[in-house]
C-alpha cells in the first residue's frame, strides 16, 4: 500500500478524491492507530484516491476549546485552515467525531469551508454504491453487536442511522442499549475529560456505560470514536469481560469482513 500525503499529490500536480483527516488519537494512540489502519485498508481496497496531511496535520483544537482555552483553539484552527485552503481541499473524511464536529461546524466561520464526512457515513455510502461488499459467510453473522452512539456524532450532529446501516451489512443481530440514539449515555471522554482525572463521584462514567453495554449480552461493542474506544475498553475491563466482549470500531469490523 502506498499512502500519500497532500504534499506528494500536489508535487505531482494531482488532486485526491478525499483528504483522510486522521486526528491526534488516530495518529498517536496505539489502539486508535489500528482504526486508522483499518480505514486506510478499506479505502485502498476500494480504490479511493485519498491523501493524508501527514506531518502537516495538527490538533483541530477541540479539547482546548472545550476546556475553555479559546486561544489555543484559534491557533490550531487558523493554522489548519491555512494548510487546508493552501491545498484547496474540498472533501474531508475523518474517523474521529470530535475532529468531524470541529471541521464541519466550527471551521466555516473561521474561513474553512469543506464537505466534511464522518467515516461511518462514508462507509455507508461505499456500501450503498456497492463498492464495499462483505464476505459471504461473515464472522459476525447472527452474532449480537451493540452500538454506542458517540455524543459528537449523535446528539451534536444528529447522525444515528448511517453507523447502524453499516452494521446491518454484517448480518449481525443489532441489540440496542437502553440509552441509545439521542438518549445515548456519554462514554465520559468529551469536553476535554479525556485529558484529566474524573471529578469525584460514586462511579466513573465509562464504568456505567461499560456495564450497560455488557448487559446487552453482545459479543461486540461497536464504536465510532477513538475516545469512546478507550473509555469503553476500560469499562468492559471493569466488568471483567475483556475476554468475551470486544470493543471494535465500525471501520475495523468492516475491514475484517470486506470481500
Amino acid at each position, binding site marked *: 500500500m502506498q499512502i500519500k500525503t497532500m504534499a506528494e499529490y500536489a508535487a505531482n500536480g494531482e488532486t485526491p478524491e478525499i483528504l483522510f483527516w486522521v486526528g491526534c488519537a488516530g*495518529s498517536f494512540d496505539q489502539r486508535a492507530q489500528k482504526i486508522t489502519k483499518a480505514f486506510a485498508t478499506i479505502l485502498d481496497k476500494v480504490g479511493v484516491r485519498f491523501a493524508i496531511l501527514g506531518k502537516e496535520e495538527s490538533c483541530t483544537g477541540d479539547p*482546548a476549546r472545550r476546556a475553555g482555552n479559546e486561544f489555543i483553539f484559534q491557533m490550531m484552527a487558523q493554522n489548519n485552515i491555512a494548510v487546508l485552503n493552501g491545498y484547496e481541499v474540498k472533501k474531508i473524511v475523518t474517523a474521529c467525531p470530535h475532529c468531524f464536529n470541529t471541521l464541519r461546524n466550527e471551521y466555516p466561520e473561521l474561513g474553512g469551508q469543506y464537505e466534511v464526512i464522518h467515516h461511518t457515513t462514508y462507509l455507508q455510502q461505499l456500501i450503498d454504491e456497492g463498492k464495499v461488499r462483505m464476505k459471504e459467510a461473515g464472522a459476525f453473522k447472527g452474532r449480537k453487536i451493540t452500538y454506542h452512539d458517540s455524543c459528537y456524532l449523535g446528539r451534536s450532529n444528529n447522525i444515528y442511522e448511517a453507523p447502524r446501516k453499516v452494521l446491518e451489512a454484517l448480518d449481525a443481530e443489532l441489540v440496542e442499549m437502553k440509552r441509545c440514539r439521542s438518549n445515548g449515555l456519554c462514554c465520559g471522554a*468529551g469536553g476535554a475529560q479525556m485529558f484529566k482525572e474524573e471529578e469525584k463521584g460514586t462511579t466513573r462514567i465509562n464504568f456505567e456505560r461499560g456495564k450497560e453495554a455488557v448487559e446487552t449480552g453482545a459479543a461486540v461493542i461497536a464504536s465510532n470514536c477513538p475516545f469512546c474506544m478507550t473509555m469503553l475498553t476500560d469499562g468492559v475491563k471493569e466488568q471483567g469481560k475483556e475476554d468475551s466482549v470486544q470493543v471494535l470500531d465500525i471501520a475495523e469490523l468492516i475491514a475484517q469482513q470486506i470481500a
Partner: protein
Amino acid sequence: MHIIQELLFVIAFGVAVYLFYRKARQIRQNILLGRDVQLNDEPAARWRNLLLLAFGQKKMFRNPLVAVLHFFVYAGFVIINVEILEIILDGIVGKHRLFAPLLGGLYPVLIGCFEILAALVLIGCAIFLVRRNIVKVKRLNQHELDGWPRSDANYILITEIVLMLLFLTMNTADQALQQHGHEHYINTGAFWVTGPFVSLFSGLSDGTLIAIERTCWWLHILGILAFLNYLPYSKHLHIILAFPNAYYADLRPKGKMENMPAVQKEVQLMLQPELAADAPAGDIPKFGAKDVPDLTWKNILDAYSCTECGRCTAACPANITGKKLSPRKIMMDTRDRAEAIGEQIAKTGSFTEDGKTLLRDHITEEELRACTSCGACVQECPVSINPLHIIMQLRRHLVMEETSAPQEWNMMFSNIENNMAPWKMSPDDRDKWAVEMNG
C-alpha cells in the same frame, strides 16, 4: 350591592394586572442584563420550534405517560382561559354567564368541555403530587430542590387543584339555583361533569346556594389573579416563557460552540503580523463569563423559563455517576443571581460589585469541570434551555481570565501548542502509522 361587587372586582383586577406588569417589566430588565446576541435569523425554523416544542410539547412525549398528563394540565390551562374571559367580563359588567344567551345550545357544550378539562387538570395535578411526594421520582427529589423549590412545586399543584374544585363547585351551585328557578341564574341545562352532583345541593336554600356560588366565584377569580402574580416568583413562569424560549432556541448543530471573534482576531494578528498595521487597537475584551451580565440574554431567558423538571439532570452523565454537576442547578443559580442583581438595580439604580458572582458564589469549579459537553441536557430540555452554553462560558472565564485549570489540562494545552497534539508526542511521528503501512 351589585355595583359594589363590580367595583371591587374592577379594583382587584386592575391591581393584579398592574402588579404583574410591574414584575414582568423587572424580569425583562433582568433578562436584558445579558449581552446581546442576534437570534432572529430563519424565522420559519423558529416558528416551527415554537409550534412543535412549545405548543406541541414535542419533547415531553419522550415520556408519553407524563406527557399526556402534562398535556391535560396545559390544555386545561389554555382553554379554561376562555371561561376566565367570561368570568372577567361578568365581573366588570355585573352580569351572570354573559356568553350563555349569545351561544345558546352551544354554551352548555362549551362549559361541559371546560369541566372535563378541569377534572383532567385535577387528576393530573393529583398524580403529579403523588409522583413528587409519595413515589418520590428521583429527578423531582434531588438536592438542589431542597427548601423553596420543593415547596414551590407543591404550592403550584395544590393551587391548581383548589382552583379547579372552586370552578366545579361554583357550577354545581349554579345549576341548583337554575333548578330552583332563580331569575339571575339563567337556565343553561345540566353541565357534563357537575350535572350529576347537583342533587347534593338540592336541599339547600337559595341564600346558601348563592353564598356558595358567589364565594366560589370570588375565590376562583381572586385565586387566578393571585396565581398570576405568583408566577414571576415561581418556576411556574415556564407557562409563559416556554414560548419565546422555543422561538429563540439555538438553531445550529448542538456540537457547535460559540465563536469568540475577539480571540479570533488577536490570534490572526499574531499569525499574520503584517495585518496589525491596519488593525485599530480595540478595548481589551472580557473572556467568558464570571457573572450573569457576562452571559447572553438568551441564557438568562433560559433561566427564567426553567421549571426545574430535572430532565437535564436525569440525563447528565456526570450527575448520574454522582458528580456535583447538575444542569438544572446551573439554571436555578443563574436565575437566583439575575434576581439578586435585578433587586440591587431596583434599589440603587445601577449594578455595582456586591462581592458576589455567579461563578463560585453559586456555581463551583468542581461542577463546571465535571461536564463532558455531551449535550444530553440540551437534548432533553422540553423548553429549549441550553445549560451547556453557560457552563462553557464559565469555563472560558476560568481558563482565560484566571488561568485556573487542572494541571492535566495545562499540560494538554502546552502539548497542543508545542506538539500540535494533546499528548506529549513528537509531531514527526504523526504519520508513523502510514510509514509502517507503506512498508
